[in-house]
């Protein structure tokens, strides 16, 4: 008890250990040593390592964002290409349909023209035949009339045998 009190008394005489200057060299020496050691740990190991990790992460995130943008751009390109292909296909389909329509129309027109031509040809042929028939009919009438006139003339005046004059007379009559 007495020794403890003595120790307390000794410490009490110190008062504030903070202003016990005899310990200052010791504290300052060890402070300098600690700070230098800590400085080397911080400057040579800790900060470069943590800094590089943070930078790597930053780069990785930036890369990922860039890549995502790239993918988005590609998707947009693909969509544009799809739309273009679709529009082209539609245009082509329309063109094919138009061509087919035009072709069919041309065929039909040609068929109609051909039919018209055939009809016209047939009509022309028919009219020629009709003309022929009419002509032959007229000729027959003339012949019949001539023969009849000759016969009649022969019956009435057997002396008159000028066939040529007779025929001319009949033709003149028929024309009149």
């Amino acid at each position: 008890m007495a020794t403890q009190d003595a120790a307390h008394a000794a410490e009490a005489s110190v008062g504030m250990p903070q202003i016990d200057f005899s310990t200052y060299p010791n504290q300052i020496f060890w402070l300098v040593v600690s700070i230098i050691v800590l400085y080397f740990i911080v400057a040579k190991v800790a900060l470069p390592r943590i800094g590089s990790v943070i930078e790597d992460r930053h780069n990785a995130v930036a890369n990922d964002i860039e890549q995502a943008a790239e993918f988005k751009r590609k998707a947009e390109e693909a969509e544009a290409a799809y739309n273009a292909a679709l529009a082209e296909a539609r245009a082509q389909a329309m063109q094919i349909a138009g061509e087919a329509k035009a072709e069919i129309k041309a065929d039909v027109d040609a068929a109609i023209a051909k039919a018209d031509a055939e009809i016209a040809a047939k009509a022309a042929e028919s009219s020629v035949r009709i003309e022929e028939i009419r002509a032959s009919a007229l000729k027959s009438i003339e012949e019949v009339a001539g023969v009849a006139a000759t016969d009649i003339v022969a019956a009435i005046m057997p002396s008159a045998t000028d066939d040529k004059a007779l025929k001319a007379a009949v033709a003149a009559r028929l024309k009149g």
Partner: protein
Amino acid sequence: MSTESTTEEAASAFNIHPMDQFVVHPLFGDGPIQWYTPTNVTLWMALAVLAAFVVLVVGSRGRAMVPSRSQSVAEMTYGFVRKMIEDITGKEGLAYFPHIMTAFLFILFANLLGLLPYSFSTTSHVAVTGVLALTVFLTVTVIGFVKNGPSFIKLFWVSSAPLALRPVLFLIELISYFVRPVSHSIRLGGNLMAGHAVVKVFAGFAGALGIGAVIPITAIVAVYGLELLVAFIQAYVFTILTVVYLNDALHPSH
């Protein structure tokens, strides 16, 4: 005799020694304290350095892209100090990032370790905080003159004030500049010392009050929480003032 001994007992029950915790003593033996003697100062400073090493270096050993918890703590500490320097001084201050980081880590871990029971708070000693503050003061002054030459004096010449006032302000600014290391060191050491002494005083009451000790123990818990906050805040305050002083040296014009 018996009455005398009881009074002595009663006296010793209230014989609180709140400053005993700050006594520097040798780790081995009981001899005089030379400058090289390993003392409790050596032990607790070494532990502070070790704690900083564990948190920053061991904590970040994974170097993971997605950080683990310990790596997050290391990165947060890194980012916290770095951002503080960048916000106050801009990019130029980053050259002193390792130095400021060292000061911050040392003070922070010395403060926190000092809160362990039976520990020794190295940062409660003016010898320690004074050397730290003087180092900051001298370094910043040298940087100021090296970077700006004699125009560093403009720091004290308040050109925005009326001309007649400028010499007076010059004197005031000059005095306040030289008082900086004093306030810088006493603020940290005083806060730590006062808080720890208060805890010790309450602990002394608790020993003497028997069942009534509940009250001082509750007070100790509250003060301990406060001291935990103070440990962080004082490390932060010391660091941010260092950065502000550094900024004055880098950009002395007001």
